[in-house]
């Protein structure tokens, strides 16, 4: 059920680079990462749900990080998921980075920039 290693590593980096008073910024950063994964089809629903759990538990994670200097998101992911089991997750903040922003990506691991889709990157 756990997030893939590289995704988890990056979320760990975001969380561990922060301080407790920085919670809103950390939340925004994880949401940006979530949006990127979703819109580039790099994460399925299960992975996105796990990221939502991390966002739900962010305050707790930052408290642990402040106390012992480091927190491993995966180590509490399971228990956190159980803890909030039975009540719906808060809906993720509506992304301000909409589909248009990712128009040069497409599904199934293909890029559609077309060698000229990004205006400054002239090619063929």
């Amino acid at each position, binding site marked *: 059920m756990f997030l893939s290693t590289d995704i988890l*590593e990056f979320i760990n*980096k975001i969380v561990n680079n922060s301080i407790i008073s920085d919670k809103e910024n950390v939340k925004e950063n994880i949401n*940006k990462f979530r949006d990127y994964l979703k819109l580039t089809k790099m994460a399925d629903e299960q992975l996105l749900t796990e990221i939502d759990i991390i966002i739900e538990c962010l305050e707790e994670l930052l408290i642990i990080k402040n106390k012992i200097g480091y927190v491993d998101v995966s180590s509490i992911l399971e228990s956190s998921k159980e803890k909030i089991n039975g009540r719906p997750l808060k809906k993720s903040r509506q992304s301000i980075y909409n589909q248009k922003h990712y128009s040069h990506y497409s599904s199934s691991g293909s*890029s559609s920039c077309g060698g000229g889709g990004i205006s400054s990157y002239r090619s063929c």
Partner: protein
Amino acid sequence: MKTIRIFNQDILVRDSLCTTDINKRKEVLPSLRLYIKLTDECNANCLFCSNRDARDFGTIDLKKLEYVIRYLLNMKVLHGISITGGEPMVNPDMMNKLLNLIYEIDSSLEVAISTNGYNLLEFLKMDAVNKLESIHISRHHYNDEVNFNIFGSKDVASSKDIILLQEGLDDKKIININTLIMKKYIDNLEEIKRMLDYVGNLGVYKNGFVSLMKCNSFALEHFINFNDIFNNLDKNFYLGHHFYSGEYCECVDGLYLTKYNKIVEFYARMVKECNCPYTTQLVYTSDNKVTAGFGKRLLYKEKS
């Protein structure tokens, strides 16, 4: 590749998407992007300029351009428009007229503008600025003075201008910073990180990096293969994709966590061939011709 007929001429167009596996293809209907060279005039004097040999110094005729856009839309081959130059913002009034024309023809067209930042804040006076898909600001260094030197001009995007433009836009994400990877400037991972830290501090979300196209002596001398940098990213990066377009082009994208805890999306690209056999773009020149790429074969010119 597929041959399509435009303006009574056959052109070879790519009919596949880039893929993460260099040996795989994903077929799509061929489509083209129209680059409009609003002017060949430019305030800068870049040593790496790839435009010097393809300048016409004409004046755009909006009626003729309208005909071309409608023609391509009717052909169902147009997937977007990029406005470029020279420096397209040497005449903001003309830019405003052009944008209004494009959105009058089709309000759903994706329109991107490439600028070095000359008259940057004039964008905020334009009727259609918040309809734009993106404004690509060329910014080749995080230090204003070094950036001015690279452009050979002080009339290019300053940090202050970028921040003010960003603040004035409804949609903050339409600004992209584009940066050349070249020797002596942004040429290694630490420099890439400094650039991304800078972009994050401006409040801009996206930074594209491009290796020089080895098509002139300056580019040959200053070329850096982007793989030498982006194959060796550290833990501050999340590498999302590595795409290939056959042997001709490749790119990577992902996210970076700046040292000031901002997330910036990065994109890097390297075109490996100056002359590839197909085209993905048409160019409407400042003297009202249509060519199959920059400085390439003439496809259309209205008889005078």
